[in-house]
């Protein structure tokens, strides 16, 4: 009787399935394409060489070290600020106009295009504070960029800590900082850690703000301190990908494989942390 309705239903279901499958195919072809293009030029030697004018001699050494430096410095700067802000907003602030305003401010900071952060870093850190094109300037810029991500993730983790745990702490005669630092934050730590790792993977994948502050793509040395000039993986990849020669595209793909491996490792760690502490939830 109602065959048309049922046919339409079946068609609709298949369409939804097909669209989902399409997204998976896109992801698959992205990974396969990059693997196909880049795997032939990928070698241990590739990781040990500095950049070069000749694609077959170019390598990732300085970019790898730069990324490592940037990741550590950014974590060092952004993590304490981010967690502290989250603690204040969740545990101390009353729901008044000021705290709501800060909350809106943080949500909006998370939505500012990364390139605007680049201009901010260029003006404040590179020019006004005279840091030059150093790791400091890069890490500070990226810290501002990932700070809202860390704050929002930490807030969610802290909010998920059941209130009876706080009550138990206060009922034992603890001061707020004791309840927060000894009970709430440890209970929220898996969630906070996951957020931090996601924020740092965002930081090491960013290239636009670092290009803005003048991260170089030809760095033939390993940075020895946070005052040195640097390059990072995505900037190096961008440089190679934007060249017209196809042979540079191949090593760009090899660089992407390395970058994705780093990111997947970090995400794996985040998943493992979540898994390990699941039973407390």
């Amino acid at each position, binding site marked *: 009787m109602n065959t048309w309705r049922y046919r339409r239903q079946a068609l609709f279901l298949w369409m939804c399935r097909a669209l989902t499958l399409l997204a998976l195919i896109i992801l698959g072809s992205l990974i396969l394409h990059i693997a196909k293009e880049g795997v032939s030029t990928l070698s241990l030697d590739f990781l040990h060489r500095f950049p070069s004018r000749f694609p077959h001699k170019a390598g990732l050494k300085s970019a790898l070290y730069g990324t490592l430096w940037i990741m550590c410095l950014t974590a060092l700067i952004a993590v304490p600020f981010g967690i502290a802000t989250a603690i204040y907003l969740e545990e101390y602030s009353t729901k008044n106009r000021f705290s709501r305003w800060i909350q809106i401010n943080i949500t909006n900071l998370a939505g500012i295009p990364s390139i605007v952060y680049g201009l901010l870093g260029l003006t404040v850190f590179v020019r006004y504070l005279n840091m030059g094109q150093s790791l400091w300037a890069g890490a500070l810029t990226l810290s501002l960029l990932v700070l809202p991500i860390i704050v929002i993730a930490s807030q969610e983790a802290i909010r998920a800590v059941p209130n009876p*745990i706080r*009550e138990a702490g206060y009922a*034992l*005669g*603890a001061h707020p900082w004791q309840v927060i630092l000894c*009970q709430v934050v440890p209970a929220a730590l898996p969630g906070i850690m996951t957020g931090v790792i996601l924020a740092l993977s965002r930081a090491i994948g960013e290239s636009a703000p670092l290009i803005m502050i003048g991260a170089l793509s030809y760095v033939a040395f390993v940075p020895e301190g946070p005052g040195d000039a640097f390059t990072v993986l995505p900037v190096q990849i961008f440089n190679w990908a934007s060249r017209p020669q196809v042979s540079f595209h191949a090593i760009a793909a090899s660089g992407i494989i390395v970058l994705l491996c780093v990111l997947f490792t970090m995400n794996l760690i985040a998943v493992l942390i979540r898994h390990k502490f699941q*039973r407390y939830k």
Partner: protein
Amino acid sequence: MNQEAPILKTEGLKISYGSTPAINGISIEIRPNRVTAVIGPSGCGKSTLLRTFNRMNDFIPNIKTEGQVWFRGQNMFHPKVDPVNIRKHVGMVFQRPNPFPKSIYKNITWGPTIHSYAGNLDELVEKSLKRAALWDEVKSRLHDSAFDLSGGQQQRLCIARTIAMNPDVILMDEPCSALDPKATARIEDLIGELRSRYTIVIVTHNMQQAARISDETLFLYEGNLIESGKTKALFTNPTKQQTEDYITGRFG
């Protein structure tokens, strides 16, 4: 009447949440080393009253407290009084067991540690767990997570954690409402054992429980104290009609 000095005393205590009144002028005295039960139907202000005694109500925004509350003759709401100090002497056990997500051992030692306890922690843990009648069940696994315990064991751990602070008063807010009858019986036995050392104030909506374990009973209704006195007298021979109606199950 008993001439012993009360350990907790309120006079004209009035509490409201915003514009909603919760307690309308209650004056009571709670005497040491007894079990005092606070009974009454839901929403009568039992928990609000209990939470006044260790100032846990401080965390509720828009709450207004008027009147006097004394702990050992000291005005608890005097501006110079630090609620943290009160909570050291007045411990609390909550409706649902709420152990910290840490080991059994650390659950007990945390309170004393933050108050710079100078004695031996191992001994303190053993003593507290023995008093809470939990030692034999957990002595071999003190460093396991407290979440591995059953609900009744968790609640006894929370009692042990409170005991470890060596408080004068232990407030219990319906401590058995989340437990099965067997675990409830164990907690009730435990309360009987603790009365010689501590003053216990227990909120319960279970009248049989109040009758079984308490020495004195306060009956609250809609924020007012209707009747108070020796449990036996109150349950066998109530003076007010409302009390009789409540304990005979005509409402509530």
